[in-house]
């Protein structure tokens, strides 16, 4: 049974359809990159998977005992967060919030786990620092640590490297890859950067005028064929 099975999805918002007839599956341990033009519906797809956006038609099935509140999410930054007074620890800990039900306070175990996730991201020295004073790359690591508090299985990342310099970008990619290979967390990532997508991902989903879903190898072959066609036409 696949972790996520999407059949004939039709996506959009405000009653406007953006993507039609999209089908793909994600298995446990996959690293799926979603690529495509601006406005092709990448973020809409992610929001629909998370239940933030209503599905127009089609089916999304969660398998392997995955529950809705067991998905980690790294959203794009909002303007509110840029001047938010909160320590790194407070933010990371808030990742547990969705799974707590009616319990009002965090347990000691959750606090230790949050500290563990902060260490995993290599930002222990920033634990008591204020979020708004960190660099872009450090902020992304904080939000990634928070996402890890929400999940052990599946993490969704919406352009995690946008606005980062090349060093921070490379570090971010290698952290995500480590989570995928070492911790066996399934990754679904939206990316602008096709070359990085091809080098890190196991599967590629291209949405736009023509949709493609398959393994990285198939994608490279397909793209190669496509570019050959272009040269022949010229």
């Amino acid at each position: 049974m696949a972790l996520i099975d999407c059949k004939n999805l039709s996506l959009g918002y405000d009653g406007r359809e953006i993507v039609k007839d999209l089908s793909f599956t994600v298995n446990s341990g996959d690293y799926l990159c979603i690529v495509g033009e601006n406005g092709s519906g990448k973020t809409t797809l992610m929001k629909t998977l998370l239940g933030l956006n209503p599905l127009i038609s089609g089916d999304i099935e969660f398998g392997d005992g995955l529950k809705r509140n067991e998905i980690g999410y790294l959203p794009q930054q909002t303007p509110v967060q840029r001047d938010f007074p909160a320590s790194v620890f407070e933010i990371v800990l808030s990742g547990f919030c969705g799974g707590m039900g009616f319990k009002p306070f965090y347990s000691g175990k959750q606090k230790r786990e949050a500290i563990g996730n902060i260490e995993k991201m290599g930002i222990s020295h920033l634990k008591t620092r204020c979020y708004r004073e960190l660099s872009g790359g450090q902020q992304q690591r904080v939000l990634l640590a928070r996402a890890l508090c929400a999940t052990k299985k599946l993490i969704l990342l919406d352009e995690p490297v946008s606005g980062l310099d090349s060093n921070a970008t490379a570090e971010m990619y290698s952290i995500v890859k480590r989570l995928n290979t070492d911790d066996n967390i399934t990754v679904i990532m939206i990316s602008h950067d096709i070359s990085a997508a091809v080098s890190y991902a196991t599967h590629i989903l291209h949405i736009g005028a023509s949709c493609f879903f398959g393994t990285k190898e198939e994608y490279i072959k397909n793209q190669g064929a496509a570019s050959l066609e272009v040269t022949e036409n010229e």
Partner: protein
Amino acid sequence: MSESLNQLYTYLQFPFVRYALIVGVLIALCSSLLGVTLVLKRFSFIGDGLSHVAFGAMAVAAVVGLTNDMPLVLIITTISAILLLRTGTNAKIKGDAAVAMISVGALAIGYLLMNVFSKSANVSGDVCTTLFGSTSILTLNKAKVWLCVVLSVIVVAVFTIFYNKIFAVTFDENFARATGTRVSAFNLMIAVIIAAVIVLAMNLVGSLLISALVIFPALSSMRVFKTFKSVTVCSAIVSVICALSGILISIIISTPVGSTIVLVDIVVFLGFWIVGNLKARNAG
């Protein structure tokens, strides 16, 4: 100096002065707790908007001839609060515009109704009292004080129990919703609480100055403190101290209660602003 202290002591013998102090402190505490969330959610002006709605509702109650206008005012204000906070991030009319629209609309309708239908001889006096809360805090009866105590206890309890969830929802609504927190329920809860606090606070500082109680303590502590917890605790303390000293000062030098409290808030804000700048310079 000792003369004013004596005078103060004499005043404190009166129950209505003690009532005013109790109610003032409680309202200041509640509004400052919510203030942090509202300021961070870019809803600083919601206090203003809602209090104008409450003003309109009071005018309606006066015209209809209700002797106890509290329930009607509370219901109308709560409904407006829910509508305003619910529209939130995805509305066609953005938050600030919606607040401004409802706020001036209610103010105009309220004043119109009071003018056309009022049986009182001193319309402008009534309006002024409602807008600036000049004397009503000194005319509180025991029932109103108790109502205020009960509501404050509820607000503080709810805030403490849901503190972590309120933080998560304020910091990142989408993440909270995606990971299974019932965000709309919390927004609804915050809306109901803020409406209750506003209706209570109208007695203290009047419609026009409520925003000051909500935003100044939060803004002051955000100059200096950098974690959510310290900002929340600090703004509660700042707010209570400002309200207390504002009421006492206004009694001693006989100034309007509401504006005196706001003035103290402004002075404290300037102090925090300077401290924050000095801290930043030392760190840099």
